[in-house]
């Protein structure tokens, strides 16, 4: 029972941090150029899946999407569905990569690539603009450094959490 409560508290804290990072990123960190973002909220997903497992990561991601967009006032808008598709694909990639025990950096890179693929697919169907697929190679090559960045931060965070718990 005590263990369960502790876990719930951790999941709640991770969700709160993910929501906060999501809002901070979309409000205070402007896109670099071409609409490229760092995706720092993905750090929390990486930490959660390594720390607990995929069920908790799904909970954190669902809460992050729903509450984060609710607080930003964009819920069920076009950007909401676009980011949802990206997050769903990147979560699936993370779960599959966790099953085969790959490293954090690699899963971070793959999940950021899948995130951009999901967003592009959703934009294609949402706006009926099939030409945006030509934008995919640019996003592919820029999501590798951003994936390395988030993966490195997640690695450091995990190292510090495991020292304390």
């Amino acid at each position, binding site marked *: 029972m005590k263990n369960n409560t502790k876990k719930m508290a951790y999941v709640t804290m991770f969700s709160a941090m993910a929501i906060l990072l999501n809002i901070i990123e979309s409000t205070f960190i402007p896109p670099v150029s071409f609409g490229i973002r760092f995706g720092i909220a993905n750090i929390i997903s990486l930490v959660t899946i390594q720390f607990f497992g995929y069920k908790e990561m799904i909970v954190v991601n669902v809460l992050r999407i729903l509450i984060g967009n609710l607080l930003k006032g964009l819920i069920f808008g076009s950007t909401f569905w676009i980011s949802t598709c990206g997050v769903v694909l990147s979560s699936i990639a993370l779960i599959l990569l966790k099953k085969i025990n*790959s*490293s954090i*950096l*690699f899963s971070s*890179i793959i999940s950021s690539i899948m995130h951009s693929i999901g967003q592009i697919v959703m934009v294609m169907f949402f706006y009926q603009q099939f030409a945006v697929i*030509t934008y995919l*190679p640019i996003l*592919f*090559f820029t999501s*590798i450094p951003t994936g390395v960045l988030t993966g490195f931060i997640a690695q450091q965070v995990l190292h510090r959490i495991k020292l304390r718990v």
Partner: protein
Amino acid sequence: MKKKEIVILVGMMVLVGILYLTSRYFIQISNIYVVVKHKDDDVLTVDITKDGEYWISGSYGRLMLEVKDSKWRITNEDCPNHICSSIGWVNTDSYFPIICLPNEVSVTLKDD
């Protein structure tokens, strides 16, 4: 990061790079049209893969749209300042809408 993962990543990068370069090389320019408008009315729609010279009558005088090698420009115009011809050749990579105010003519890409 494991060695196998670095190999996978580099392989993916090479594959995407090759696909991107080949797709840029092989995809032909097709179904790109230039629309000439005079006072909100579509006067002329031109396929940019076909070379040609088209005369358009504007509000001030006549002007000619020249299409050549997937590029287009305005020449032989009757207008006081010749701003539209000073823009020069325009193509889809360096796209710029050509507008002639005295003639009330605009040359833009058809968006679909």
